[in-house]
């Protein structure tokens, strides 16, 4: 059984953390830059410049001028693969207002199904089911003001029948 490096959440997409690439030497430079240098077998040298900031699970990485912001999700340990699915998408991340609930309690929904519409920063956003399941309970109502941390609903993961 191979041990997973864990997963990242980048722009709502889950990405497996790849195996570290080997042979990099890191130099700290003034200005907060890091230089990663790697000598390849063919005699060439790779030199990358990057800046990183990290706090708890949040990481901001600038590499080649590209900013990537992401969260490091809990490392899945070997043998714990069947834990509860991550439902952090179902918690408000920013202040706003509930516009419309699109499904009823008790309904079964596939992954990706739009569940509710929220309004923030004068824009509308659709919150989708992060996994297939049954709507166990709504915690918000239409028109309700949202503060970060408020849970929209409980979604019971559909247990897959193995046969």
């Amino acid at each position: 059984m191979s041990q997973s490096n864990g997963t990242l959440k980048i722009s709502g997409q889950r990405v497996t953390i790849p195996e570290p690439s080997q042979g990099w030497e890191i130099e700290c430079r003034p200005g907060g830059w890091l230089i990663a240098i790697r000598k390849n077998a063919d005699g060439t040298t790779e030199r990358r410049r990057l800046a990183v900031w990290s706090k708890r699970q949040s990481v901001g990485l600038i590499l080649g001028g590209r900013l990537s912001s992401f969260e490091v999700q809990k490392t899945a340990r070997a043998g714990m693969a069947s834990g509860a699915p991550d439902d952090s998408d179902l918690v408000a991340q920013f202040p706003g207002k509930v516009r419309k609930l699109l499904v009823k309690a008790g309904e079964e929904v596939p992954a990706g199904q739009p569940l509710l519409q929220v309004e923030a920063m004068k824009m509308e956003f659709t919150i989708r089911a992060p996994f297939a399941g049954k709507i166990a309970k709504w915690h918000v109502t239409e028109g309700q003001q949202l503060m970060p941390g408020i849970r929209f609903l409980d979604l019971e993961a559909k247990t897959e029948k193995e046969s």
Partner: protein
Amino acid sequence: MAEMKSKKEKLLVANRSEIACRVFQACRELGISTVAVVAPGDEQARHVTYADEVVEVSSYLDPAAIVAAARSVGATLVHPGYGFLSERSVFANAVEAAGMAFVGPRGETMDLLGGKIAAKELAERIGVPTLPWAKVQLGGDLKAAALKVGFPLLLKAAAGGGGKGMRRVDRAEDLDSAAESAAAEALAAFGDGTLFLERLVDHPRHIEVQVFGDGMGGGVHLFERECTLQRRHQKIWEEARAEYLSDAVRNGLHAAALKLVCEVKYRSAGTIEFLVDDQGGFYFLEMNTRLQVEHPVTECVTGVDLVHTQIRQALNPKKAALPEVPAARGHSIEVRIYAEDPAQGFLPTPGTVERLRWPTGAWIRVESGIEEGQTIGTSFDSMLGKLVVWAENRELAIERLRVALEETVILGLGTNQAYLLALCSDPDVKAGKVHTHWLEKTFASRYQAVPSDADLALWSALRKQGLGAALDQAPASSRVGGAVSSQASPWQQIGAEGLKP
């Protein structure tokens, strides 16, 4: 030096963030004292430390509070910036009634041009082309009006802006339901549910003409800008001049813009927006009676300082104060950096600016609205700043913009930096093969938010050398001490730095 006794001028900017700083810079150069206003929740904003005096106001949207603030400090001039109260005649009139100079057009001009319907009627009257359009009468025959205009069409809010209360309608059957929801949205957003219909142009370009009027019927144009790259009617990339126009269209646009400026005796800086179709037709959209977010690209290609020109005119309104406009030189591009995630429907990404490093270098101009350590919430506009470049031609300007973006470091919150960088190397952007819906229709599926495996593997390698353990688990205090003992562990050092108050 024996100088004539002159009143000490003092200018209040009824705005915040980068545009307030832009105007303050001009004031400092001209020897005018500066006054900032600050609304609750915005105390950390950059403009607050940039001015000589600061007055607290209940809201940036309260005309009475801002006029009272200006009087309380003895301001002689008020600059409205863009957004907020900049196009509210009530505010301009109140400023002038209180004996201060409003750095912008007269309130009556805003009334004349502010309503989209009134502005269209005015344009039609003086022979400036508009799109086929029709008013929507309450309870009137919507279908008849729509057939007159032709499909596809847009339902628009008369008091609208920013895409609110706007619906595309392709078929007569969809008219009623679209009108109902657009009117409700317009009523909620602007307190006015009045709608009108307008013919929709497929694949248009957005071209606008920068103008400056002397307030007495004279005016000049400072060439055009192209702002075709927009999403939800929000510009994110602006250029001067517009590269892909025939001379006939270009001259037509300039002439039409000047006609409007002279007709309304426009005063100060303004912008006239047009849609240009792929047949060479152009249509008046609206006039923005203020300084635009994207004014720096015009300044770069003309060398005219629009803010200086505005202030000089406001100080001496009786004199015809038109800028001398030299021939435009080279090409300039501006991009707007926002705290938002383009891959998730431009979801706001509030957070703290933990690390900030704007680019430096030849022909790079930065209009920053943020400081390192500042927390960006969701109560105010999420624009963090603007990057502006100039180069001798468009091709080089795009490459220079790419370099500027590569040199920009904003860490601690998400931004659209990677998205803008991807635009710089997109073949359609380079070839100018874009239209106002191109970002949503074409580029949305091209943009890759997730970095390449190789980049993630490099990050993973760096993390393995110390980041994971040090930052994910250890309490802050235990990291600060035993930091940089090993050359291979830059992470603790970064962690410690990031935690400094």
